[in-house]
């Protein structure tokens, strides 16, 4: 019985190791290509440590276009995050408190963006463009569409946060102690939802910084668009930027992981032990 269990365990560890290799290898290949100035056919044990430098990245930083693109992408990320919070948090709270029966419908609606993927969405935007040039000419008009793309993830995050805090009880307790809606929202609900809000914001940022389809078709000069263009003239530079972008996304997700670490610590005081605490010798 033990040997079979041992075999099983070995098999599982093997799967994890193979998985790790499969996922690490492409990234390593890209980083190597970006940062090591050695052609692949020249690569051998002798040249393994030659030609490493970060100059590709610094070269990219010298492009004006890079800073413009970065600025635009950051603006879009901020705008999308704010728009998302402004629309989704009150909506989610409203649904939880007033119309719990509608939760299924709302959940369904938040999955709709999957049905209309980015390329189809941008096709529709192109159709509308002549009629709404005043709006769509601005680069910032991407914001609501990005919010739509991020919707399935951000709504699920906020919804999960609400479900974890027993919204109804907290709200009723707050109102019964005399707080109005604004106070309740600002001093009770939002602080309790901190981790859900942080993770949905980080998710939005990750989506915006990586979104290429809509920006490409609409010829907006965001960071990913810059990456693609720069790669044509300097492939190693383009790849280096991709490495940075991946690292940034990983940091964002690490941040999400930290923010959503389980905060429920079971109370360490049991009822029995607290009774003992109260029994004092007379």
């Amino acid at each position, binding site marked *: 019985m033990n040997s079979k269990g041992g075999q099983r365990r070995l098999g599982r560890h093997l799967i994890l190791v193979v998985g790790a290799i499969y996922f690490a290898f492409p990234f390593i290949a890209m980083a190597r290509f970006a940062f090591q100035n050695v052609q692949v056919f020249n690569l051998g044990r002798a040249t393994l440590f030659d030609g490493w430098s970060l100059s590709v990245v610094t070269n990219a930083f010298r492009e004006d276009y890079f800073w413009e693109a970065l600025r635009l992408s950051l603006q879009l990320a901020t705008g999308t995050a704010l728009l998302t919070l402004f*629309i989704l948090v009150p909506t989610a709270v409203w649904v939880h408190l007033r119309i719990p029966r*509608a939760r299924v419908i709302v959940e369904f609606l938040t999955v709709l963006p999957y049905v*209309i993927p980015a*390329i189809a969405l941008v096709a529709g935007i192109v*159709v509308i463009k002549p009629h709404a040039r005043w709006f769509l000419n601005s680069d910032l008009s991407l914001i609501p569409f990005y919010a739509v793309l991020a919707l399935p993830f951000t709504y699920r995050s906020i919804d999960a946060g609400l479900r974890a805090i027993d919204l109804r009880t907290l709200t009723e307790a707050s109102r019964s102690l005399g707080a109005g809606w604004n106070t309740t929202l600002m001093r009770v609900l939002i602080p309790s939802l901190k981790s859900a809000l942080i993770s949905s914001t980080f998710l939005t940022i990750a989506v915006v910084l990586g979104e290429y389809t809509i920006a490409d078709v609409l010829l907006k000069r965001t960071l990913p668009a810059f990456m693609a263009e720069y790669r044509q003239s300097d492939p190693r530079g383009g790849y280096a930027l991709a490495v940075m*972008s991946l690292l940034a996304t990983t940091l964002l997700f690490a941040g999400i992981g930290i923010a959503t670490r389980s905060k429920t610590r079971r109370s360490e005081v049991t009822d029995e032990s607290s009774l003992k605490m109260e029994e004092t010798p007379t």
Partner: protein
Amino acid sequence: MRDYVGLLPFLAFLFLFLLVPAYSVFQQALKNPDGSFGTDAFREAISGQNFQAFKFSITFSAGAAIVGVVAGTLLAHAASSVERPRWIKNLVTSFSGVAANMGGLPLAFMFLSLLGRQGILTKILEYFGLDLYAGNFGLGEVSGLIVVYSYFNIPLMVLVTLPAIEGLRPAWREACVNLGGTGFTYWRRIGLPVLLPSLLGGFLLLFANSFSAYATAQQLTDNSKIVPLRIGFFLGGDVSIGEDAVGYGLAAWMIIVMAASMGAYWFLRRRSERWLG
């Protein structure tokens, strides 16, 4: 009823920025060159070369989905059952979160530098006598696309399937063993049947994901048999007036395929929640 008023901002937002564009796609697809209603473009969008494109896209998407389902389930099962070290499961989940949302350019670059004609793995295989490009392989062909898309499909499957696998109660396996069944009996009669809706749902999700991906494909290849790329070419504007309706037809059919997949996925997910909840 008045309570639904609170949903107005959200509904308005969805309407303006999701439904209106979607509707416009269909509206434009169902137009004749003279502007009247007509299904010519709509039908042309799935015939001839366009049909070949759909066939191609569906094929590689299904292939990538199958690989994702099998590998993802194995990985999720391995991650959830490995007890030591404890941080493995968290690491797998976190990484899957990152990798599943990856797509776009970094993914394309990664595989260009790994399996492209000048890729490092290509060169390594050459060293061992294997010419990767001898046969039909190409990053823009079915084989290449399956390899590349598996990179985000597998983590996505892990994320979606992990809760289902953890929903398999240990008591079921122990009861099965206690009543005379082996591990094999358990998977055959209880484990897999219970997981089946999740697995099918996962397949559909992965399929939809692969079918609709644009950014990665665009950087990897200019293969116009990939439907999102094809739509992109039409939107790019090197198309004469009147032909652009076909482009919108492609987009409309894409939405239909996605709607069918996601609809089935939604149905299956509710089914599996009933058993594992």
